[in-house]
């Protein structure tokens, strides 16, 4: 079973995302900010990270930079999932090493489409 780390400071979003990812047969681990997410990755690299941008403590972009420097941190497919819905932010995220980008609001169809793009479905 493939694993997905869902990183979002909103409990509701994590819950919705978890449900969608579980329906797509992913094992889901959650983190409420970038710092916790790094701890989770240190315990074991997930196959994918669904990543919010704006979060307290450590935001999505900082997390991504830190992740890509960890041993094995180049492996997870990182899909941003954020309300930052403009080209500049998309470019910044992709430059930092994100594989795909979801503009909120999202639904299961969009998530599925994006995880197909990164080759995990």
């Amino acid at each position, binding site marked *: 079973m493939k694993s997905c780390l869902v990183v979002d400071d909103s409990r509701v979003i994590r819950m919705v995302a978890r449900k969608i990812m579980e329906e797509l047969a992913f094992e889901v681990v959650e983190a409420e900010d970038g710092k916790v997410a790094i701890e989770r990755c240190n315990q074991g690299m997930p196959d994918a990270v669904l990543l919010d941008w704006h979060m307290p403590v450590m935001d999505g972009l900082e997390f991504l930079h830190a992740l890509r420097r960890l041993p094995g941190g180049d492996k997870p497919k990182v899909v941003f999932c954020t309300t930052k*819905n*403009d*080209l500049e932010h*998309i*470019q910044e995220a*992709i430059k930092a090493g994100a594989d*795909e*980008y*979801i*503009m909120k609001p*999202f639904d299961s*169809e*969009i998530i599925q*489409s*994006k995880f*197909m*793009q990164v080759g995990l479905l």
Partner: protein
Amino acid sequence: MIRHDDFELLRGIVKSRSGLTLSPDKAYLLENRLMAVARKWGMNDIDGLAAAVRGGPNEELLREITEAMTTNETLFFRDQSPFEQLQKVVLPRLMASRKEARHIRIWSAGCSSGQEPYSISMILREQSALFKDWRIDILATDISRTMLDKARAGLYTQFEVQRGLPIAMLMKHFKQAGDKWELDPSIRAMVEFREFNLLGDPGTLGRFDIVFLRNVLIYLDQPTKAQVLEKVCRQMPTDGVLYMGGAETVMGVTEKFQPVSEHRGMYRVTAGGPSQWKTPPASIASNA
């Protein structure tokens, strides 16, 4: 509830004008969709709409009724694999056999709001070096004027650009326009949009090496499907390629086309052409 004779009248119109077949259990669908048309024409129910139809010939009204009953669901790079095959197998192969003419024609029949033909044009753009000195025409047709207008405008919602479209393509070929995303005019210019009813004679459109006829025939009855496929076949060379939707088949409908076993959704003209569409050897691909 819609009256039985109104339903029969309206579904008859839709059937004869487009081939779209509505079974009696679709009465609610007809009612839902035609309410907007009724209101637009100043009637507040389907009864009134049916009365207007009975009142005498009104081409515009009949056209709008038909158009309202089409299903326009679509997305970029739908099913992915046809577009990969197009790029990796079909185009290199056809280019190898058309080295003299350097001309390939592609038809997206039932193109809806344009995602299908634009997916093709984005693929061509990605490999523009390969097609230098080639003329590649993409004709996209639909019966629905509303969809054709939308397609020509090339404006898509945030939801639409996130279904099937890789983020790299969004970054490269779209720019933001208010709360919509606008496809690059140069990509749009690669596609010609035209109103065309598949019940008509495609002879007026010319010949096509590749035809995308996907998720259109599913709404038509068996004899109409066969007629459309036979007419389409007449417009294709023997090495032409037809694509249909993932849930469709020609089996039991026509013998003019045969599935290409190694590629789902892809069909070859029965009368000729290579029976194998494996990835061509590198030399063909690079010479092309």
